[in-house]
């Protein structure tokens, strides 16, 4: 008791040394981070799933069912973006953790799962949905529970919500410029409109018809809709042959696409005789349809995998490194990739994960690393983006043949087109 044995003293001092060294290391490591990592109480005042080192977000797509083939690309791109964000140190110093839910191509299931993510898991943001129907099913829930949804698909517009950021094009961005291109560059005067029978093609064709008839003074020589999943286009092909339009303007989706293009080719309607401009064929669909059935037709998108800017080269390389060299990247996949980046930028601008603050900070956010080049978020939570026309190649890729000179303003409620 009187004096410590030398052994004890050494132990003691060794321990002190170890402790102080450890605390030094800790301090050193915490010190630079400390300035970057604001306390959780400050960045999360609404009880979201934000901890000192981690923030939880949700991902809600169809991993099973008929939509799985389309939504897989979005799931992969969002995961890639989140991985890259985590590799850079996360968002406000917090690693992003993902809770995945399967909407199973069923709209009520989407509603159930979105509610689970918001009410049960308190996720800070949700990246998800693909079809308009699934978005319509979850929208009231996001508005009521005050969640944040990043929606990647090009869609029909007519919607705007504080709780949604639309990273795809609304209808006018995809349609108006491409119709003008067809008129000015290809001297097209008559159009035959074809779509699958649901809200997106219907609205798109309504806008296209108004633009063609009222603004271009051109002619619509036919307008036809077919049920989703329809595979018999013979009567349509006859009508096309009779009407002889300058341009077939198509928004056929899903499994119908394959039958549509194969039957066109079988009927001798190929690119050397007939111009076709589609709103619904990306690299993903081309994979199913087969490049040889598409070659020479045009597609109107904002992004093609073949873009040659540096952002895209990096993105394509990273995507293929993660998901294999055979994977393809379509327009929606790229738009899905933007979601996590826009969310990160908005959170950092707001200095908070709170949904209200993030929503308020969202307009004006720029994504300079966007594979499509550069995008900016509009006041209405849609993106300013360019329009591009790609010509389908036999290998399923698209060659970009035209690009709008400026970013096109998103206008989900276009005047004169209602």
């Amino acid at each position: 008791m009187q004096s410590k044995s030398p052994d004890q003293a050494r132990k003691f001092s060794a321990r002190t040394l170890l402790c102080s060294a450890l605390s030094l290391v800790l301090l050193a490591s915490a010190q630079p981070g400390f300035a970057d990592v604001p306390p959780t109480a400050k960045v999360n005042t609404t009880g979201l799933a934000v901890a000192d080192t981690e923030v939880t977000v949700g991902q809600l797509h169809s991993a099973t069912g008929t939509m799985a083939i389309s939504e897989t690309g979005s799931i992969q791109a969002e995961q890639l973006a989140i991985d890259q964000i985590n590799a850079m140190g996360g968002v406000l110093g917090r690693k992003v953790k993902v809770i995945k839910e399967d909407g199973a191509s069923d709209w009520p299931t989407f509603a159930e799962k979105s509610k689970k993510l918001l009410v049960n898991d308190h996720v800070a943001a949700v990246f998800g949905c693909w079809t308009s129907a699934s978005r319509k099913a979850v929208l009231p829930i996001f508005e009521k529970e005050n969640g944040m949804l990043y929606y990647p698909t090009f869609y029909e517009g007519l919607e705007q919500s504080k709780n949604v950021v639309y990273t795809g094009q609304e209808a006018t961005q995809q349609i108006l410029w491409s119709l003008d291109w067809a008129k000015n560059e290809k001297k097209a005067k008559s159009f035959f409109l074809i779509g699958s029978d649901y809200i997106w093609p219907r609205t798109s064709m309504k806008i296209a018809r108004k633009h063609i008839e009222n603004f271009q003074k051109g002619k619509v020589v036919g307008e036809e809709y077919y049920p989703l999943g329809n595979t018999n286009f013979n009567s349509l092909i006859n009508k096309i042959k009779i009407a002889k339009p300058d341009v077939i303007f198509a928004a056929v989706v899903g499994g119908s696409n394959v039958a549509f293009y194969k039957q066109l080719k079988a009927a001798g309607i190929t690119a050397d005789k007939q111009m076709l401009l589609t709103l619904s064929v990306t690299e993903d669909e081309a994979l199913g349809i087969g490049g040889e059935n598409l070659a020479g037709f045009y597609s109107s998108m904002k992004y093609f995998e073949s873009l040659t800017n540096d952002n895209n080269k990096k993105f394509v390389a990273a995507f293929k490194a993660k998901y294999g060299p055979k994977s393809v990247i379509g327009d929606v996949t790229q738009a899905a990739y933007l979601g996590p980046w826009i969310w990160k930028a908005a959170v950092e601008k707001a200095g908070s994960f709170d949904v209200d603050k993030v929503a308020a900070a969202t307009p004006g956010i720029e994504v300079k690393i966007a594979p499509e080049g550069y995008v900016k978020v509009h006041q209405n939570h849609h993106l300013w983006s360019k329009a591009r026309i790609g010509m389908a190649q036999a290998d399923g890729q698209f060659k970009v043949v035209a690009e709008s000179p400026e970013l096109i303003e998103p206008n989900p409620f276009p005047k004169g087109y209602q």
Partner: protein
Amino acid sequence: MNKIFEQFGTHRHAALILLMLLLAVVLPLGLDIFRLNLIGKYLSYSFVAVGLVMLWGYGGILSLGQGVYFGLGGYCMAMFLKLEASDPVSTKIQTTPGIPDFMDWNQITALPLLWQPFRHLPLALLAVVLVPGLLAFVLGVAMFKRRVSGVYFAIMTQAVALILSVLIIGQQGYTGGVNGITDLKTLLGWDIRTDRAHYILYFVNVALLGLVILGCQWIQQSKLGTLLLAMRDKEDRVRFSGYDVASFRTFVFCLAAALAAIGGAMFTLQVGFMSPSFVGIVPSIELVIFTAIGGRMSLIGAVYGTLLVNLGKTYFSESFPDLWLFLMAALFIGVVMAFPDGLAGIYSARIRPWLLNRRGIQAASSVTQAGNPARP
């Protein structure tokens, strides 16, 4: 337990009381409102399953198109709620304010005649039961009078499901198309999206389900129930005894349709939208699976079956998003292989004899009870 059995005579009542205790006391105390709302959604399917017990188990008529009636009931409710949500103030950005948004998108400029009755709640509630009931009546008369039954009847019900889903999706200006009728907000000014409303709707749902089961039990015990069983097993004898088989069949078909429609309306109220994804063939078959898992002779079993399958679906898909379909398949195969009579079969073959043995009562004394394993 003894007391309950004595007091209420049959185990059937005890089973209903146990179910009601579980639904009205245990679950609300044990679950948060989000999960309880999900249970409420599952219970709305169980109305269909209960109807199928009457139709399939007792009547011997397999319908693979019950989603049609569930959907119609749900749509009738949704149409009323949608009109209430589409008042001119909240739809003022539309070309034609005051009509549902999807009509405006489809260039419809006035409310269609078909929608007019749904401005009034009493008419809408009547329509919930009458529209599907009437459709079932017309189909029933058309088919049973011609003595269409068995597989042919099942195929016809599938055809109806297909026709109706194509019709709803195709007429999107009138029905909302693939999107369905979404964004429902209030019922006579009462916000149905709040937690409080979800609690109230849940208890309304449970109470309705209890009443429906009681009503069906009453039918089972009455002469009508006996006749249904007799028709199922020996149709010709019943006919030769002077009964009009077609009328009885039409009745039970209408009953099952009306029950499914009540479920559909409760679904719309609790989930807040209705979509054509229920009207098709696949969901209709799923509804039959709920009944088969529960045991097609047991009303109570049908409710448990619906709960089990849907809880499994939710649990598996939340916990194993990549594997859940396989796990669901394993559940179906497992139950059907091990218990051909469903969950109710487990009860009557295993648990009940054990209970009775413990109480020293001869199991044979109540073999005639309706909760028994299904006869082929």
